[in-house]
């Protein structure tokens, strides 16, 4: 059987690859004729998503059903029967990832018929074509004039009567678009009209940078109309400072439209019996964010709530793991099959494959002309210029190797950054050592940046250079080592426990290490969760499951030390009270969570007993509340942490509980932005309805607290407001766990603001939210960014899923492109040792044979020489700095590089 995934957007793709790569049979069902979903429409994202689509198309474990829809579902978990556009499929579990649709009932007051008013998705398309155009300029659709002033209007179809909730993603994608505009066109006037800027983490930094560095004007107004007037688009907004309604003339307006559940979702729910919530999203719970009401059916991504790509991808990985637990592995994992390489031989027989790249290269580069010139290179090369897609090209290469006996391959077309592994793998499959292949990027480096004539010229040159280099390519032995089917999880909070459970349920042994005497992390604090559950109940459930799981070894009061090794084969020591154990493991998950901040000195905290933090107030709500007037201040210090994603939600949650206890309680909330993203928006509304007063202060004019009186300049009323509270509640940042610093060094994963950094930083791509630069080490939960329990659970399931993909393999390959030392030349100066970023080089004393006049004479004695260890990751720093030329990087030997350069000059 296998696992069915419904929806071929970024979530479906992620889930499919995680599962297929772990050896599960996957049916990927997409209603459109192509994979990619909404994400493929985004300017930046299409490029990032395409390699994954290629991977799916070529994956032996994935059966792709395009232009197909689920028509019926019967059976139960473990034995579902699906009818997909007439095809019968059997699956043990199903992942629902139907995605979202954008709000399409935009009021006509926004002049939507005007060509210069576009939605954010349309704008992505414009940015893409601007990049591809001759001048690269952003031109006004109506008259082709250069856009000089552009305005983004947020919350179109969100936080309104038609769609009560916040769409979560728009603030960030608008910031990204504004950033892209400013990066490319620094002179352009950019303004963003917003109600609350709901961005977190890196997006929060980006928004701040946009305001401070890029000069983007963020204007607080929900602009209700766009008036085309005298060739411009006129928008009005409220100037709160001056108390006037001001007008701004713009050349273009981008409407940041909200997200709605996919239009297919209601039918999908009907067919599958999955419950939807009152907004039309698949109903999940805060402690089971990936599970639907039907056993064996899992949901992920924007089908459960509006969210960003990063969160969708995390949920998708997590849902994949959950689905996998009900299924049986039946398939071979690609790359794990035995491979035999044909002796390549000294005489290069070079094949050049020039791909049209679905027209992207063919339309700009004169491929026949290039092929003609390449075929005239010395010693003769075989040229194929017929292919137009990645798949066609791969087949041509395979046949070239197998049928024509080619032993050096030059592939010209797509970018190596994304496709090198795919092409190498195909060569290996065909029996050619994968390092006898060289790539030329004709798309980004020719077609996208040159006029046709220059592009053709440049393509011919680049290919010829690659051919010259290919002549000198050497076989690099591919070595395999076994994967240790065990995982280490650091941090025993909800994220760590959930990750450990996921991996253990998948059948692997887990070491769970917690520094505190007990498991639980922040859940140990007795608080009411946003869902109404008590933290203690949730905690007990997790702890019970963890302690009764035979595959999980729990170490409390313990820490991890001395980590060595690489993905699939790590070693470390668990040190702590009573424990001192050497362990080995194939994968590691870091889930250290956060530390609570103590706002010592802020608003008299620590001295005045009536000043408490939000979590402290939450605990007070367990008892009686005697206060009459409570003032809450958001975004209070101390420095050194980050604003947690749940800040406003925690506040609303506490406010509502307090109002429930004492309906006459006066509550004033002093805020800069209310960030009740997604469905949490309803808490904000409820708080207003319960009579909570919201006063907005400016970052530069924080509230004051003196002699029992809070004074705040409310920008909404543009007046000073004074309140006499009985209790002052401070919302403070979340601090990174203290041990992050040490773990960061040990695992070589960079930190930012004390939190762990994902493998791919914003604003480019975010398809690997739990992966790190250190392969085999994953991060999740509040160790990455302090988030709500549902997100921590989804993310830790994702980390477990990614770890399982690794652990499912029997063996991995050692990195082949590493540095080597010519011991005869090495002078033992040690420059390389200092240069190496991963400490993989050491100096050793070796006996030295000396050759004199052709007669070998062994002189007793030793010489200091450099030795490259297992940790080498092939960055080449040592090779470039070695003063004697003793150090070189395989695959980038001097003769290879010089051959390439010689042709160019």
């Amino acid at each position, binding site marked *: 059987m296998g696992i069915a995934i419904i929806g071929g957007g970024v979530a479906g793709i992620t889930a499919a690859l995680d599962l297929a790569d772990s050896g599960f049979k996957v049916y990927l069902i997409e209603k459109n004729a192509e994979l990619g979903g909404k994400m493929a429409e985004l300017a930046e994202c299409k490029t990032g998503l395409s390699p994954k689509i290629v991977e799916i198309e070529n994956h032996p474990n994935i059966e792709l059903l395009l232009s197909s829809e689920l028509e019926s579902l019967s059976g139960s978990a473990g034995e579902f029967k699906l009818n997909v556009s007439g095809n019968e499929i059997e699956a043990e579990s199903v992942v629902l990832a139907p995605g979202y649709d954008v709000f399409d009932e935009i*009021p006509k*007051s926004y002049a939507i018929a005007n060509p210069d008013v576009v939605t954010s998705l349309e704008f992505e398309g414009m940015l893409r074509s601007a990049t591809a155009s001759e001048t690269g300029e952003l031109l006004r659709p109506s008259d082709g004039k250069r856009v000089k002033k552009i305005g983004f209007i947020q919350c179109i179809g969100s936080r309104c009567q038609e769609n009560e909730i916040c769409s979560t993603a728009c603030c960030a994608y608008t910031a990204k678009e504004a950033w892209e505009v400013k990066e490319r066109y620094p002179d352009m006037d950019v303004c963003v009209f917003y109600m609350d800027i709901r961005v977190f983490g890196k997006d929060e930094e980006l928004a701040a940078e946009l305001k401070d560095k890029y000069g983007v004007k963020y204007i607080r107004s929900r602009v209700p109309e766009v008036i085309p*007037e005298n060739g411009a688009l006129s928008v009005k907004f409220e100037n709160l400072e001056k108390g006037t309604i001001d007008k701004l003339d713009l050349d273009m307006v981008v409407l940041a439209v909200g997200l709605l559940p996919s239009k297919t979702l209601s039918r999908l729910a009907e067919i599958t019996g999955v419950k939807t919530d009152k907004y039309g999203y698949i109903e999940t719970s805060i402690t089971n964010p990936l599970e639907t009401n039907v056993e064996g059916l899992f949901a992920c991504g924007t089908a459960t709530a509006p969210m960003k790509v990063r969160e969708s991808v995390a949920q998708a990985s997590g849902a994949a793991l959950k689905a996998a637990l009900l299924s049986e592995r039946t398939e071979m994992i690609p790359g794990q099959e035995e491979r035999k390489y044909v002796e390549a031989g000294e005489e290069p027989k070079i094949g050049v494959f020039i791909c049209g790249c679905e027209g992207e290269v063919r339309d700009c580069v004169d491929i026949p002309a290039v092929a003609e010139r390449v075929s005239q290179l010395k010693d003769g090369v075989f040229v194929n210029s017929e292919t137009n897609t990645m798949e066609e090209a791969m087949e041509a290469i395979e046949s070239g190797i197998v049928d024509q006996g080619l032993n050096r391959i030059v592939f010209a077309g797509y970018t190596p950054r994304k496709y090198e592994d795919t092409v190498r793998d195909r060569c290996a499959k065909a029996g050619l050592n994968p390092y006898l292949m060289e790539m030329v990027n004709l798309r980004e480096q020719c077609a996208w940046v040159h006029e046709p004539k220059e592009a053709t010229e440049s393509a011919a040159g680049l290919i010829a250079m690659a051919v010259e280099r290919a002549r000198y390519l050497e076989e690099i032995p591919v070595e395999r080592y076994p994967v240790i089917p065990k995982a280490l999880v650091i941090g025993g909070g909800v994220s760590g426990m959930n990750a450990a459970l996921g991996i253990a349920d998948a059948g692997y042994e887990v070491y769970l290490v917690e520094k505190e005497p007990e498991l639980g992390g922040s859940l140990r604090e007795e608080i009411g969760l946003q869902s109404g559950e008590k933290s203690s109940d949730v905690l007990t459930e997790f702890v019970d499951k963890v302690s009764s799981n035979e595959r999980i070894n729990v170490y409390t009061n313990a820490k991890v030390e001395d980590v060595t090794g690489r993905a699939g084969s790590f070693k470390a020591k668990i040190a702590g009270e009573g424990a001192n154990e050497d362990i080995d493991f194939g994968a590691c998950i870091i889930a250290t969570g956060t530390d609570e901040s103590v706002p010592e000195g802020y608003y008299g905290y620590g001295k005045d007993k009536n000043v408490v933090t939000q979590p402290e107030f939450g605990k007070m709500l367990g008892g009686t509340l005697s206060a009459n007037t409570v003032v809450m201040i958001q975004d209070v210090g101390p420095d050194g942490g980050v604003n947690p994603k749940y800040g406003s939600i925690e506040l609303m949650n506490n406010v509502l509980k307090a109002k429930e206890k004492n309906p006459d309680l006066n509550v004033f909330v002093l805020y800069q932005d209310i960030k009740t993203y997604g469905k949490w928006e309803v808490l904000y509304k409820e708080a207003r309805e319960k009579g909570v007063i919201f006063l907005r202060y400016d970052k530069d004019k924080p509230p004051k607290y003196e002699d029992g009186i809070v004074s705040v300049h409310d920008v909404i009323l543009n007046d000073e407001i004074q309140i006499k509270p009985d209790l002052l509640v401070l919302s403070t940042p979340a601090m990174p766990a203290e041990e992050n610093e040490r773990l960061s060094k040990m695992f070589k994963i960079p930190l930012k603001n004390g939190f762990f950094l994902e493998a791919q930083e914003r604003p480019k791509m975010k398809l690997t939210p739990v992966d790190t630069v250190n392969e085999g080490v994953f991060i999740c939960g509040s160790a990455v960014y302090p988030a709500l329990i549902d997100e921590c659970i989804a993310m830790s399931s994702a980390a477990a899923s990614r770890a399982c993909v690794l652990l499912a393999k029997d063996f991995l390959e050692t990195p082949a492109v590493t540095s080597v030392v010519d011991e005869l030349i090495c002078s033992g100066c040690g420059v390389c040792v200092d240069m190496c970023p991963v400490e993989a080089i050491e100096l050793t004393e070796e006996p030295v044979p000396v050759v004199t006049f052709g007669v070998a004479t062994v002189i007793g004695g030793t010489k200091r020489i450099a030795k490259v260890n297992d940790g080498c990751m092939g960055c080449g720093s040592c090779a470039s700095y070695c003063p004697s030329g003793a150090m070189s990087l395989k695959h980038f030997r001097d003769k290879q590089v010089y051959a390439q350069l010689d042709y160019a000059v």
Partner: protein
Amino acid sequence: MSEKKLAYYPGCPSATTAIEQDMSTKAVFEKLGIELSEMEDWNCCGAAEAEDPILVYALNARNLAIAEKDGLDIVTPCSICYYNLARTDKALREDEGLRAEMKDIDSSLEYKGTIKPKHILDVLVNEIGMDELSGKVEKKVNVKVAPYYGCYIGRPSETAFDDPDDPDLMDRLIELIGGENVQFSSMKTKCCGGPLMMTREDIAFEMARKVLESAKNAGADCIALACPLCGMMLDAKQPDIEKKLDIKVEMPVVYISQLLGLALGIAPGKLGLNKNVVSTKEILGKVI
């Protein structure tokens, strides 16, 4: 339209300031073969001046109940009357308590919600329909028109029957009769200032000026509208506005029923085209 008979709610200005709207409405429906039966003993809807919703509901419950007795849907040519009738209809349909409250005030206020109040524009375009109307058009009214909708046609949403920002029912009628709609979309639904005419003339005149001058700048031969308060403001008060603000617009203002009547071949006199304050002579010259 299946129903050939409607209850007619003329509204208070029908006998005086908006007599031409009353005349043309009756003439048009007669020509279309639909009987308008004036409601027996109707009362004022409360206009914009009754600000207490309960009073509005009571006044209009009485009117609704009168039509309900005859089992007829109501048509009214006035936007404010329509709004008051429609919101009362909606409130009473949805709220049983409110129905009881009405009945409690007087038995004549007992309304069950079996009929519907409608605006003339809604009836003409959506009930009678463009097909039927086009079959009856006899003449081409070759004028450039600024279609002015004002309030209550597209908003508020619960009683609206056209788009709140870019309504087009009147535009479609104007096209049908051979007229041309000028660029007027930013003004179509702006308030004319009517409700402030007696209490803040300065503001009201300024609001009306914007509408009048926009129509003029757009090159309109006339403004078409469907509300007697707008008619009062933009037509009857136009000379006062010109004098007070020292401007010259001389913009004919006609009811859509008058324009439609011309296309249906009804004599101008029967449509009250001599009753409009700003002369409509030039329009008549363009009927062919």
